[in-house]
């Protein structure tokens, strides 16, 4: 991306998370802290899935649901969406700090900030995206696990299928942010079938006595 070629409205840039590319470096966490609208406070979650077993990590930005659960459960009607579908932090005059949104969000995104008695969350760097710039986390991410660009750029440069429909029990959730899975066409994953054998099952061949 060149600075003189910013994304315009017609480009319809999308935000894509590909957890498989994450290297856990926390550049996103550090960069989120530098955002002009909440300087000093990172709103990204970087999860270590099970460090005892794996180096797998997972960055989590707000998925910006079309019908956001956080807003549905807010008793003070403090959580609003922009016309572009960006779910914003709670409005300061309305937020009562009840944390309903924190508990209800299926992706675990909103944070209750006790110091300011307000819920804050990722707004996909509205200050940057409104000017055609990438959000801060997707700008710096060294591995492009967090990525921002056009659908055409996805097709040209990246593998995997884009997914944005989720089922949480009986609740259907469609998100603005895409997640990457290996192959959407393959249908639902049969968790009982197990996976193909991989060296990851036994990296040092301890079980087969190789080393």
């Amino acid at each position, binding site marked *: 991306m060149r600075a003189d070629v910013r994304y315009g409205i017609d480009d319809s840039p999308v935000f894509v998370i590909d957890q498989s*590319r994450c*290297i856990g470096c926390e550049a996103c966490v550090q960069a989120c802290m530098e955002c002009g609208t909440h300087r000093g406070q990172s709103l990204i979650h970087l999860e270590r899935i099970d460090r005892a077993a794996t180096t797998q990590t997972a960055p989590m930005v707000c998925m910006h649901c079309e019908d956001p659960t956080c807003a549905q459960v807010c008793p003070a009607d403090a959580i609003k969406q922009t016309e572009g579908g960006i779910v914003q932090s709670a409005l300061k005059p309305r937020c009562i700090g009840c944390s309903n949104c924190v508990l209800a969000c299926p992706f675990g995104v909103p944070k209750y900030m006790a110091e300011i008695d307000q819920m804050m969350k990722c707004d996909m760097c509205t200050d940057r995206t409104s000017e055609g710039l990438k959000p801060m986390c997707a700008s710096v991410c060294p591995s492009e696990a967090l990525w921002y660009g056009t659908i055409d750029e996805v097709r040209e440069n990246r593998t995997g299928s884009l997914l944005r429909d989720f089922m949480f029990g009986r609740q259907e959730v469609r998100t603005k942010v895409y997640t990457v899975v290996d192959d959407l066409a393959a249908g639902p994953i049969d968790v009982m079938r197990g996976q193909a054998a991989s060296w990851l099952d036994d990296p040092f061949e301890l079980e087969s006595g190789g080393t």
Partner: protein
Amino acid sequence: MAHPPLTDAELIDRYGPHLNVAPPGGWNAGIEVDRVVDTHCCFCGQQCGIKLKVHDNEVVGFEPWYDFPFNEGKLCPKGVKRYLQGSHPDRVMYPMERDETAPGGFRRVSWDHALDRVVSEIRRIQDAYGPDSFAMLSGVSLTNEKSYLIGKFARLALGTANLDYNGRYCMVSAGAGNKKALGIDRASNPWSDIPLADVVWTAGTNIAETFPITTSYIWKARDRGARLIVQDPRVVPHARTADLFLPVRPGTDSALFGAVLHELIRHDWLDHDFIDAHTNDFDQAAAAVAEMTPAWAADITGVPKARIEQAAEWWGTAATGMLLHARGIEQQSKGVDNVLGAINLGLATGKFGKPGCGVTTITGQGNGQGGREHGHKCDQLPGNRDITNPEHRAHVASVWGCDVDEIPGKGIPALEIIEAIHSGEIKGLLSICFNPLVSSPDANFTREALDRLEFYSVIDFFVSESGHHADIILPGSLHEEDEGTSTSGEGRIIKINAAVEPPGEARRDWEILVDLADRLGSGHYFPYTDTHQIFEELRLASAGGTADYRGATWERIEAEYGLFWPIPEEGHPGTPRLYEGGRFYHPDGRAKFHAVPYRLPGEVVDDDYPVWLTTGRVVSQYLSGTQTRRIAALVAQYPEPLCEMHPQLAEHIGVADGDLVTVTSRRGTITLPAHVVATIRPDTVFIPYHWPGDKAANQLTQRVVDPTSKMPEFKVSAVRVEPAGGRVTTTDGRDFDLQDGTT
């Protein structure tokens, strides 16, 4: 005497590391920006482009530099937070002299006093013990201009042969191997070649934590369908996605490479045309691996035989491939052997000089590439010339305007300088950009050595742990306080731009050296009034050398987002990819295979020290931590060293995650929390080395070096690991959370 004037705790209390938490004015201050400066990160050899925001002579933030083609705005956490090293409470603002009676152990002195004292001590020591009894140590976080200037300063102003640099602990095994095999020491390819490779093989490089931006290049290769082979004792983050993992035992890499060459030959996965037309000595290399079967190597390396065979097949049958290696295979007493073994695999299969083909080191330090070219190595003159070669000496003498005999001969490498200080042969030391107390092996020995110096002066922006031993501290400049060039790991010469002026009485490093040269009576050799003049002289001095910068101008470097050397005349496009058309840099234009017989590392495990130790870095810290241990958000990410070990080893010695363990080698001991993870070989522990004193991993490492490169063996030690009793808990009694590495 260079013994610290106060205790470590007292010195740390006064000079830090303290934590810079927020930018000038605090997080909530409205950020006013006067200027935005295009420059580069001060840390690793990737040299990512970054824009620094400036207000009132302070760097107040950053903005991604999307235009810069190498990283297109990407940064690691260190790059994001690099700006917080400025406006730091620990910054040395004026010259200081050791004074036990002064609060803090050092008293403020004038520049005149400080420089006169340094000069008088240099004179006294050299008069009494000879010119080489005063040594200089330098570093490659410095620009090309400073590296060049230091080489000239040490030889002509200080008049000592004994100058060396901290790349001795980083890139020298790669450099020596490259020169022996290929006749030139530079990355074989621009990084844009990585996505073109059908096989990407990483050997001894934790890319996710030490070269994070390179990850995106590897992922692009994988998006194209490339296979990824990872050779490492740990399942490092990028290994998670590997098609093949080679869990090599520390210190056995050359056996693995030997077995792969054995397989390439056995299956005739060779590029005979390339070997015949462009190389020498294949037969010697082949003879050396005749008995190195995969079964033999599996026994030595711990890598399953089938995986060795698979690696050989993928590498040998792929049309294109790149092998990227770093400190894991280089920081060994067999570092050069390992590099030559890797290069043999590239030469045997013709994987050089073509798109998506190469065998290359990933240079570690910021200017690790440029800084190893222009003459602050003990055996080197600018343009990567040889200080013992009469023609090379004559060329440089003609540029310097000195008599060729004024240039001293070959000096001794960094670790030997430390050892010569310990033995009393070297009595005085001037250092810049080098914190040997943290970065040298056998830290207890290094401390004894520094204590024995009759005089020690450092040029630095913070008082590092080594600086505690100084008699005179001269406040130098941060990366963002001076301009110049550096050369990234790709071999790309880039422009560093000054964002701010040095604060207080701090001065630009080159100004300090020029002033010292003047007082030493050599001012006529150093007539510079700005940094650009130094670069113009460097161009002439490098001309005709292998690292030829003759055609590079600052204007073109900026306009073209960097230039790849060699660039022998103005208008030359530069040389992004080396060896095109099979042209190598030995006089006959051919590359050279090397026979690499297997030998043992400097120390092997035994009943008393039954566990392998390997050391390295974490993503949020950089080298000896002088800068990164002072930035709060980076410290919070990984506050203290942990001892990574496999659950099998933990169970064997009876500890759980978070329990304190004592790790003991023949050199020293360290007590730290166990971090029990299934991502490391059960016979190996890993400790990161960024911390000083009783948290220094280098208390355990040994002073065994590679016979050619003089690289110490940081990556292989034999240790004993025992429960120390107790666990790490926070002050409120909660358990230390090793998942996050934080309390």
